[in-house]
């Protein structure tokens, strides 16, 4: 499959500040790529470069094999960019707003009306067509932003924090909308701080910190990568320190920590059956109240891979 988005040693400096440093990214057609990183890590800069709004200081960014900066004019009809803030058009109503951008993409006449109506329906904004954009709620505005980038049917969607500051319902609606777009075959690059949702939506992720890409690849891979051995959470009714001493003596246990009476047991990677933990404890008179394997999710991966350094 061809890489729709590709960056090669992409570097962007603002004076002495290095926003991006040799970023190498590859996103395949139809992928939904979650871009994760602390504030100031370089996510927005990367998206802005890909949206042809910024010129790289060094390196190259390609969209559908066309180079940003050299072939920006050809790239622009292929992308749909949603910034982290909603561009204010206080004098327009929803339909005018969409028609305005449709006209900006060279869509005119009856075709424009049809497309705008279709997009309003897809994004469930039809009942708001006469409403002033400025009076919409934040969730509606974000949905309108998505509607805006759909009027010209782009191949690539660049979404910068589309779910930021949305209430739970609006976030869920946004996520469903993006899933629908993915089903439609769009290649999506989305930056967000809401990691569980990214895990649900994206098939690949990239983690960036201080302008450097720490990881890029499938979600399953990153979870596997951060998972060093199996971690089990064990709780006993009393004498947890004794239980800790007991379990730490077993050669299959690689390490054990205790927090508020809860034991976190790391077993060696080659151990498949962990029932020996319960057996040992019960045999020694402990009452086991809980035994469960700790889940490694995107949040865990993010916390383990990043240092929390903000530029």
């Amino acid at each position, binding site marked *: 499959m061809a890489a729709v988005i590709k960056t090669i040693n992409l570097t962007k400096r*603002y004076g002495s500040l290095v926003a991006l440093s040799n970023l190498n990214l590859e996103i395949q057609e139809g992928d939904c790529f979650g871009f994760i990183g602390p504030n100031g890590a370089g996510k927005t800069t990367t998206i*802005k470069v890909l*949206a*042809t*709004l*910024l*010129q790289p200081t060094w390196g190259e960014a390609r969209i559908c094999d066309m180079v940003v900066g050299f072939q920006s*004019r050809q790239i*622009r*009809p292929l*992308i749909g*960019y949603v*910034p982290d*803030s*909603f*561009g*204010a*058009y*206080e*004098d*327009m*109503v*929803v*339909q*005018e707003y969409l*028609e*305005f*951008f*449709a*006209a*900006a*993409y*060279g869509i*005119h006449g009856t075709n*424009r009306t049809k497309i705008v109506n279709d997009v309003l329906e897809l994004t469930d904004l039809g009942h708001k*067509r*006469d*409403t*002033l954009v400025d*009076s919409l709620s934040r969730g509606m505005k974000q949905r309108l932003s998505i509607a*805006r980038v759909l009027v*010209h049917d782009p191949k690539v969607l660049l979404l910068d924090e589309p779910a930021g500051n949305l209430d739970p319902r609006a976030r869920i609606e946004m996520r469903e909308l993006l899933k629908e777009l993915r089903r439609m075959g769009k290649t999506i690059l989305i930056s967000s701080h809401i990691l569980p949702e990214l895990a649900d939506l994206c098939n690949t992720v990239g983690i960036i910190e201080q302008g450097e890409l720490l990881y890029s690849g499938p979600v399953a891979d990153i979870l596997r990568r951060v998972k060093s051995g199996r971690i089990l959470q064990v709780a006993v009714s009393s004498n947890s320190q004794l239980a800790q001493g007991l379990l730490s003596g077993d050669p299959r246990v690689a390490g054990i920590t205790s927090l508020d009476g809860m034991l976190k047991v790391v077993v060696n990677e080659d151990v498949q059956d962990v029932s020996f933990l319960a057996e040992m404890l019960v045999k020694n008179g402990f009452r086991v109240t809980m035994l469960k394997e700790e889940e490694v999710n995107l949040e865990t991966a993010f916390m383990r891979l990043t240092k929390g350094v903000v530029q």
Partner: protein
Amino acid sequence: MIAVARDIFWRLIPANPILLRIISMAGKRRRDMLIRCGYLGLLCLWVIFMLLAASGQTKLDDLAKSSAGIFEKISYVQLILVALLAPVFTAGAITQEGDSQTYDILLATPLSNGQIVLGSLLSRVFFVIALLLSGVPIFAITQIFGGVGLDNILYSFGIAAGTAFVTGAIAMALATFRIGTRRTIFGFYLFIVLYMVGLVLLDSVPFLQITGGAVYSNESSHISWFTGINPFLALRASMGDPSYLPPLAADLPAELRFWPIGWYLTSPHTFYITATFVLGMALTIPSVVFLRRVAQSTLSVRSWVLLKLRIIASATTHKPRYVWHNPIAWREAKTKASAARMTWMRYALIAAGLAGAIWTLTRFAHVEMPDKYIARGAFNTDQGMVTILTSDRSIEQTYAPGLKITLDGKAIRMSDLDGRYGVKDYTVASGPRKDVTTLNLVNPKRGMSLKEAQTYLLWMLLLEIAVVLIVITNVAASTVTREKEDGSLDLLLSSPITSRYYLWGKLRGLLSLALPLNLVPVASIFVFVVYDVFRMIAEGGQFQWVVFPEAIVVVPLILMTLTALGAVVGIEMSLRCRRTMSAVMISVAIVVGVVGIFGLIGNAIAGTTSWNWAPLVIAAFSPITVVSVIAAPAQFGGRVFDEGGADLMLGARIGMFIGSLISSGIYGLIIWAIYKSMVKNFDMTIRRQSR
């Protein structure tokens, strides 16, 4: 009681945390320091220059007079600077509701409404007041030689401080009642400038002056009905200028002596100072009372008023409009033009312009014929008869072969008479034939003389042109910066829209927006030209145009050129500047400066004593001069139009017409060059500002 009062007043001002923060920060900002240095430097230079100019004087009286002159001039400089700076520093208050992060936080604190409003108001006025106080030592120099009374100094500072205070209070009231948006800032600034300049101009209109023996013992002196409400006029009245002395109470007619009219007319400067402080307080008190109540409401006062007046149907919805092929042009022309404020302003300008033109025309068209008059064909040369008409009969009288005819005191030939003239008197020979030997004629008296009509029309045209130019420059200057500020520019730049398409759309949209506004002066001229054509047919030979008919071609051409110039300069600055405020200020200063300076030079060239038409061709490069000469040729067209014959005048008109065509072409080329340069450098300019 004392404790309560102390508590209230101590908290309101001296211990107001908002005010304290601003005062403790004052002087630390580089920009403030530069403005302060510039202001004081300008005052110092002015004083040094004036002192050097007066250095040859040795008599104490002369020195005192020089000192008074210096004081007068620096008072004006001070007032001009305050008038310019006060709106700049206070206008920011208008948008504080929009940029409400800090505003909302303040409202959520235990600070009282009074502390917030007064703190915000005084902190905004503080800089201007500090600027005024920093100039006190310079004013003190004028005291060395005497000649300036302490009361004059107090009046000068009082007028400047009152202006700053009332400007701040208006901005605060607009902010508190959520009447203003970002775009209101310039409207506010424009209103202040137009108010100050407009009333000074209206002060020179004789109709609005308070003058004459009934009021003044010194008949050469006058004030106007606006003196007490304009800082510059009030300052002039306080300076003891013999040509601008307020009347004494005893000189006023009895019906004008009552309070407050008597006070307003006899002491306009003290009235101004008091009125500005009272008005400032009157605006501040409702702000204090309603601050939190208004902040809690979901509907702004502006929307509420517009809804009630049915200017808008709903605060949040309207029927979608058709979007043009070029959406950028559509946005500039339609969404801004249809905003309620703009629509209101546009209709107000059109109505005021047309009403002014029709009023002037009606006054001019009103002819009061004397009891006796002659009409076209009054002279029967075959029979040697003249027919003198009255309202109910005609008198036929023979006239002597050497009949002497005068028109308004000047000798005139019979053949030159063509139209209706009043008969002032005539003499009859004593012989049996009773031939008329002398016939003194007068032009019929109009409700407004030709010169007055031309002056009124010219001021109306200049005011309308100034408003259109400033409005378009303002809209143009904010057009890209606002998109940069709110992030919508990024949306457009990531679309396939090219820089050429974008900028052309902006220019086209702005010109469409300006079109109805430009029609106001054109319509005013058209009304007069149509009337003049009928008058020419009726009056024939001695007819004089109120406005030359070529104005129908020249004025729209000039207006479109000026509008396009204002638009490109505005867009250029909007591209270069990061902030709307600086883009607007710079572009308005450039446009007004260039047009004003060209106007001064052009009027100086056009007003030469040359009989040649060539200076008028050169003067035509100043659009203001062309309008001035076309509307009031005798006043601004120099000797050719004042004293020249019909042939010379025709030559000069043709010269001016050709000159204005050439100059419009050259301006067009300049506009095109700026536009091309913007297109070429667009990406570079925008990219340099990217963060």
